[in-house]
């Protein structure tokens, strides 16, 4: 069971947002009341919530933030029409 999926919330969801998400999910009726209650209980509990967050959420933005700017190819844009066909292979068809 993935409580984040059931309640359709992100990893950094607040307690208030959890309760709002439960209300919304109850209206949508995609999951049973029991599943919603269980998902809410898990996410409201800091220990269970942290464990579930570890298992179900992936956030690799820190890896991306740590990268330097990518500038080395700035002067290599545009069409490649300046590439002329070499004749060295003409005899080797």
């Amino acid at each position, binding site marked *: 069971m993935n409580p984040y999926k059931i309640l359709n919330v992100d990893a950094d969801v607040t307690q208030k947002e959890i309760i709002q998400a439960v209300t919304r999910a109850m209206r949508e009726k995609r999951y049973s009341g029991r599943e919603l209650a269980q998902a809410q209980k898990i996410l409201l509990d800091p220990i269970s919530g942290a*464990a579930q967050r570890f*298992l179900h959420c*992936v*956030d690799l933005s820190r890896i991306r933030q740590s990268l330097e700017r*990518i500038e080395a190819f700035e002067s290599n844009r545009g069409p490649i029409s300046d590439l002329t066909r070499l004749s060295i292979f*003409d005899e080797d068809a």
Partner: protein
Amino acid sequence: MKKKKEKNIESILARAEKFFLDGNFSLAMKEFETAQKKLTRGDIAAKIACCRKALKTDNAKQLVKKARKAEKKGDLGRALKCFQQANAVLNEAWIAQRIENFKWQLTGRDAVSLAKAAEAAGDLLRAATCYAKACDARGGTSEPLLLKRARCLVGAGRYAEAVDIFKTLPLTKAGGRYDYGFALAQMGCFSQCLRVWEDLEVNDDRFAEQKRVVARRLGAHLVDCLKRKDDYASIYRDAFYLLKTDDALLTPDQRRSVENLYAYGRSAWIEELWEAEEFEAISDILTTASGPLTPALVALNAKVWFKMAEDDGRRLHTMLIYWLPAIYSPSIAESFSGSIGEWQKVRQKLIAMAENLIKKHDDTRYGGRALTNFTIDKELIQTLAAFLENQEKDVDLICTPGLAAHLGRSDEVLSLISANEAFFENKQQYLEFGAHYTAAGNYLYRLKNNAYEEAAGLLTDLQPDLERDEFIDYAMQLISFEYGLHRLENGDTQTIRYFQSTPALFDIAPALERKLTQKALAFEAWDLLKSFEDVLFYIHNERPSKAVRKALSLVMARRAVAMSNNGQSNPKALKGIVNKALKLDPENEMATGVIQDTVVHFEMKAMYTAFKRQKMGKASRIARESEYDEVRDHYFGFIEESFDQIMANDWEREEKLMMINDLYKWGTTVGALQPIMDRLEIHLNMNQSMVNG
């Protein structure tokens, strides 16, 4: 004269008929024509027409043969002409079909000539059209013509059409591959271009420069994709490709940028795949990933393999490599909660989740050992985490043996363990801990799973050139001991060789000494006891110790009794063995008790046999010589019983007195201070007085 003339014509007709019947239509026609000149008859004219037709057919058949010969020689023009002439006479469908084919081929040949002329004149588009026509004339499947067409199209700048053709061709030669790559580059397919050019081994500076140009364009294209947040999969794949190709394609700066593109594309694409629950695809990326395995990637591996293991027990093994290192990584734990005190609670929760997952697969061969292995790993990583607590250095070494081996960092972990020997409670704990991180580690997991035969593989599998250290030595000693014990319990009588390193092991691990002695005392079958006795005897000789000496003494006594009970030894032998046991351990209460019980039992048996055979002398000697009062008590019990029986009988008084007197005499040889002896003496004295009185 007329008759002679008629005879002459008749002979001509006869010859003509003969030739006709023989199928020689040429001579037959000649004869018929000679006769017709003279007779002018309708039947002869019909015969002449018949011969003429037959000659035409023969001629046509000859033409077919000539056509085939010309075809074989490649002279399609002559073959066509012959077939056409033959078919004017024969009019057969197959010849008509061949005539059509030849016409196509000749058209194609013409087209090739035209194409070559156009190529020579620099009109490559026209050349391509002619090659297309020539190819069509050959059924549209001529690879050489298709290749020529595609190359002309490249020359004419019609790249898309050329690429469509190149895609269908095997392209074994450099020229075709170069043009294919060139066309791809012109279409902006830089990555595909580099892949097509990949193994073109041409030592030409201009070509090398073109590859560099295309690589740089690819880099710029990937940057554009990244800025548009578009197609992370291609960014990852193409950057990965660029990184593993020739270094000379990129400058160091460009290479660094590609590394960043790769890391960026990979992380972004993984996030997309995660949302789509494409865990298998993520695991493929992670498996082929280059670069360091950061804590974030360890955690990602852990959860991806966890997700896959939910449905497939085969994934448990890999999941367990990453799970504990991920949740014990300080940098990952930071994301659990702001409070350090809560980290441990979250970890326990995550450990329980993993254990539940393992239990779910408990009935499969993948889950069977996983729980034991996980328990071992849990202890190992908790210990590592404990002695690295509050240290910033080496925290990335908090890992299971599986991950350490995967990362090639086992030696670093072992150095860390060696440097922290004082942390461990005793030498055994230290060695056993470290042994799990050596090449012998896997065998220890098997041992803990009671897979003794697999564990014993260590004793034979380990590479002879492997550098041995104290950890591996310990693992070998331990496995040899445990395997020997296992074989011993299962009836192997030749196990001494497995215990040759045990004396040294017992110095390190006294608990194992207790284990052996307790096991030895748990068996009753004399043959098993003999094997245990042999092992204990060997160990006692090599490394005398109180525990082994006492166990050996007990096992000896027990085996002697077991043998005696099975009728495999006599009281004398029994006594001899038990005495030896008592010599080893004079405090062996069991031996003392056993010897007493057994000897008493056998002496009484012998004494009663003597009574039964009325050999009172022998019975008295057994009672007299016995070390046990119990034997004498039984002896005098018998005397008393006999006295009562004598008295109860109505024999003559003298006869009774004689018998009682005999009893008394035998009794005094054993001992006089017995109540029954007093009774006998009183009875004898009273009767003697009566006789005298």
